[in-house]
């Protein structure tokens, strides 16, 4: 699914060069559930932007579904995002004063699909919000807004979902519900990459990638024992 090799992302900041990504290689199989975690400034967001085709690496090769993306133009990347990738953001990023169902339908419109309403309703139904379809974002709770955002992310049946701190603005219980939705999406075969700095969220994935200073420091599969160990590690540090 994802083959990223030796990715570099360099920024010039005044006289110095910032290495946001410093030789990152990451391979993800279809159907995996991966957490990328690390402190702010570790490069996890930059990595997510590149994996999500919102940004290009300065150096390195990135293949999504076997397709090399380095040399693609803006509109080709837009089309890849539209068809194969679903984004979920920390601040939900719904379009204000627009009905939930219309928010969900936005990717379909840009994908030149017909029957957008029906598909949008089906996606809302999958996150259990069909009954709130005619509400505007400001009439929905935080958890509901994030579920609408997830419905928007899955409406095109993407093979990859990228979630950037999806529970960051939610209370623990609502966050749990959102994670439950991700798990069930993953169970039906969708690849999920979750970017978070919260260890208790990160350990819910089946694989955890830890980053620091633009590099991957650990990349491991999780079992129950390792989960417990990672959690206690964070608690003792925190």
């Amino acid at each position, binding site marked *: 699914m994802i083959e990223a090799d030796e990715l570099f992302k360099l920024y010039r900041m005044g006289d110095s060069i910032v290495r946001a990504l410093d030789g990152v290689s990451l391979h993800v199989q279809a159907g995996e559930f991966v957490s990328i975690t690390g402190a702010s400034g570790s490069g996890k967001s930059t990595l997510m*932007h590149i994996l*999500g085709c*919102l*940004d290009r690496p300065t150096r390195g090769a990135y293949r999504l579904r076997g397709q090399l993306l380095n040399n693609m133009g*803006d*509109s080709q990347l*837009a*089309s890849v*995002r*539209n*068809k194969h990738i679903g*984004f979920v*953001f920390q601040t939900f*990023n719904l*379009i*204000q*004063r*627009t009905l939930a169902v*219309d928010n969900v339908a*936005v*990717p379909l*419109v*840009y*994908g*030149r699909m*017909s029957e*957008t309403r029906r598909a949008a309703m089906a996606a809302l139904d999958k996150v259990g919000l069909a009954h709130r379809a005619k509400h505007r974002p400001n009439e929905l709770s935080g958890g509901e807004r994030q579920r609408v955002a997830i419905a*928007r992310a899955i409406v*095109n049946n993407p093979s990859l979902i990228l979630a950037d701190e999806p529970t960051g603005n939610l209370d623990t219980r609502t966050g749990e519900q959102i994670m439950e939705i991700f798990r069930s999406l993953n169970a039906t075969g969708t690849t999920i990459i979750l970017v978070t700095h919260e260890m208790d969220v990160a350990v819910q994935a089946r694989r955890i990638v830890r980053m620091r200073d633009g590099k991957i420091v650990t990349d491991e599969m999780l079992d129950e024992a390792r989960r417990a160990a990672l959690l206690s590690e964070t608690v003792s540090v925190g």
Partner: protein
Amino acid sequence: MFFLRICLMAGRSLQANLMRSILACLGVIIGVAAVVSAMAILEGSSRDMISRIETLGADQVFVLNGTSEREGGRAVAQMSLTPEDSEALANLSSVITAVPESARAAQIKYFEKNQSIQLLATNENYTIVNDYKSIRGRVLTSNDVIGGRKYCVLGYKVAEKLFGDTPAVGMRVRIEGMGFDVIGVMEKKGFLGTRDVDTQVIIPVTTGLERLFGTKYVQMIAVQAIDSSDLDGTMQEVKRCLRREHNIRAGKGDDFQIITREQVTSNVKDMISLFAIVLYSIAGISLVVGGIGIMNIMLVSVTERTKEIGVRMAVGARRLDILVQFVIEAGVISVLGGALGVLLGYAFTDLLENVTQILKTYMTTRGISWALGMAIATGLLSGIYPAYRASALDPVEALRYE
């Protein structure tokens, strides 16, 4: 299909920021209303003036005083026409009759009642040529003119205002301090040429000229031709006659000019198109201001919706999609503004016509489509730059924008 959906989305975001959309529309509304009103006023007054000119006989030629070039190139009037010229012209073979006319603004007084009028000094043929009849008393006769009598014939409104229901004929009035006997009251007629003859008072040209106009020259001689299909022949004969009367030697220019109704019409049209340039420039400027208003609001909107643009890009909007979407938003503003502007312009011209009672307005579909077309073009043009700014955003930066 995609285009329709994009239009729907544009409509939704305009609706979501209703107040701002209305403000953006306002400039276009006012601009279009200005253009529409300008067109309606122009069309109305030009139709009005031309229809007045059409009341002049098609079988007439009009002799006016000449102009001569002084040094410095400024044209000055060269008074040359006399009532005697009129007599001479009336005797020409291709001419039925000739009417000298001099008009000025004047005051008429009947006891303590005072009235502003148009004073016309002419001869007995004026009423005949124009098929203009009296309803009380009589019109001027050749005896009145030859005798230089102090008689006057009142226009319909003049008589109404000065005398009301009491009889006017036989009464004595004062015009510019000179006593005249009223011998008749004319029928209600409206415009003859460029004058409202209902507010006019007619006196013999022999009585009026020297004392009331301070000159022995008349302003115009209207000549009625026998054959309206050969006005050119009549004009030639008139020209030869007047050159002889004025003792103009061969090689010297005329000290008069001869025009037909068609020439008067085309002169008026020239004047109107000059007026049109001025009026349209002003209306056009207000439309440009409207366009700047749209651009301003669209730029604010793009900045404010940076994050939304980032989200749209993240879910697959191409740069072109974003561009088209914002241009359409500007387009919708201008179409709505244009439509409301037409309505406002319509209401405004209607009001103008009713309040002034003089100004005539006329709406044409051609004028309305022009105004609408210009509004839409303005909207799209002023939408392009903000839309380009939106489409050129970097998706990562846009998503990060707070």
